[in-house]
């Protein structure tokens, strides 16, 4: 496909199935639940936390998705293991810093994870690759109802599920999508998007949650409010917002190509060159280079099949995964060496880019 025909046929980019997975990497929903008549984790005494942990782990492991799951306390995890779980979005940074009486249960396929004694007694989470809000909701509500058979949830008809923080009351649901938005970043439109999304009652965050920078042009968009709307209404609203962000990103890509395809392809080509030849890469730089390769895949510079390789490398370039692969602990400078070596070998066999220029583009 030539670049001109790509510009001329946005329908292929806006095609539901392929472009949705291209821009939305992952969908995630989490529910906060608490046991009735029991102090929230932050206020519970150590012995009480242990008791809550015991009860919740027993109930969670009894549900069918959690058969043969990983069931572990935070104290049993090494620092590196905690970091890897954070990088895979299976536990939060807050849980990884918990003192005692906290744990997590993770399903075999890593689609479900239930944190115990994070901010709430239970933080139930489901992860799905691509844009799958509805499927994610069906999966998580089923697990939640199964838990209900074993646990008495704190709930009132007016305030809904009671949570430690009043910002989570009601549905206690946070639905989010992880989006790859390189063209909006390159064309400096992200700030505008963040503002617009905020006005619609949604929040934009960086890759690893609150306060983290958006490495690799990856952002999390989630609902801000939880009370006064049903789960279905929140999901529908979020879906509309995500759909509109996808359209803006696709428009921004078209505009960049129209204005100066050479400039955009230069970025992609240089990223490829650096990934093949560099000897020092920080995780931030690696993320941004990988992001450009991913954009190249969406623009048909690389074959579609390479997308899953990049998505895997997004995670494997993180400090925890990198050290785990090298079986040791390394200081940041050593990590940058290792990361570059890792990516060099990965990109040595990568398909070469094919930039199909058409000469009739403006000047």
């Amino acid at each position: 496909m030539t670049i001109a025909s790509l510009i001329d046929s946005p329908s292929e980019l806006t095609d539901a199935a392929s472009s949705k997975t291209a821009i939305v990497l992952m969908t995630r929903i989490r529910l906060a639940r608490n046991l009735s008549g029991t102090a929230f984790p932050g206020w519970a005494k150590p012995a009480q936390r242990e008791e809550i942990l015991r009860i919740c782990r027993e109930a969670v492991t009894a549900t069918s998705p959690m058969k043969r799951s990983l069931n572990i306390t935070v104290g049993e995890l090494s620092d590196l293991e905690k970091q890897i779980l954070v990088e895979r979005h299976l536990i939060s940074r807050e849980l990884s810093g918990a003192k005692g009486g906290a744990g997590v249960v993770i399903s075999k396929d890593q689609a479900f994870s239930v944190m115990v004694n994070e901010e709430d007694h239970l933080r139930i989470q489901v992860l799905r690759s691509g844009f799958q809000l509805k499927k994610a909701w069906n999966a998580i509500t089923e697990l939640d109802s199964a838990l209900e058979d074993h646990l008495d949830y704190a709930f009132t008809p007016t305030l809904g599920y009671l949570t430690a923080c009043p910002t989570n009351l009601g549905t206690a649901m946070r639905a989010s999508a992880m989006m790859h938005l390189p063209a909006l970043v390159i064309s400096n439109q992200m700030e505008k998007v963040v503002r617009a999304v905020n006005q619609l009652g949604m929040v934009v965050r960086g890759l690893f949650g609150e306060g983290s920078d958006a490495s690799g042009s990856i952002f999390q968009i989630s609902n801000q409010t939880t009370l006064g709307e049903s789960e279905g209404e929140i999901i529908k609203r979020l879906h509309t917002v995500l759909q509109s962000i996808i359209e803006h990103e696709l428009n921004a890509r078209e505009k960049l190509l129209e204005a100066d395809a050479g400039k955009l392809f230069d970025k992609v080509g240089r990223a490829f060159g650096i990934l093949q030849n560099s000897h020092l890469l920080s995780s931030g730089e690696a993320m941004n280079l990988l992001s450009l390769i991913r954009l190249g895949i969406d623009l048909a510079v690389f074959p579609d099949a390479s997308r899953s390789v990049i998505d895997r490398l997004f995670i494997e370039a993180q400090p925890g995964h990198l050290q785990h692969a090298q079986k040791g602990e390394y200081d940041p400078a050593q990590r940058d060496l290792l990361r570059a070596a890792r990516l060099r070998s990965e990109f040595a066999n990568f398909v070469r880019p094919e930039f199909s220029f058409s000469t009739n583009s403006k000047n």
Partner: protein
Amino acid sequence: MANPLKCDLCAKPATVHLTQIVNNKVHKVDLCESCAQAKGVTDPSGFSLADLLLKASLNPEASTASVRCEQCGFTPNDFKKHGRFGCPTCYEAFKGLVEPMLDNMHKGTTHTGKIPQRALERKSIYDRLTKLELDLTEAIKSERYEDAARARDEISQVKQTIPSNPKSAR
């Protein structure tokens, strides 16, 4: 209300003034340099006003009141310090504190979503049992043996409808 020139989180002079529109409501927050830094306000993509509003919107009268949650001993001052409640019962104990907060924080003030149906059914069964057991004790005490027998029958009937064995860490 707080002096607009003072930081909403501490008493230092405010130098950062924020306005954000969330759900068609205008929220204003004034912060000092260090609180703005600490809350990540300087990073436009990574901060949520909701958490800030939570503490800023606490009205001073409510937070000095000497109410205590009977269940867990929590006070409004503890809330001001942690930004989190002590236990589910706190929401009943500090109703006056919570209600005005919700309006700013959420789309509505009443839950319209999922209901833990099975848990609520179980709860109503337990409430019924508690009442019947009380009836039984009363009937025996006042030697109303026919009533006592009826209550006893009903208790065994209700007990058979209990679905599973729920747990909570009381």
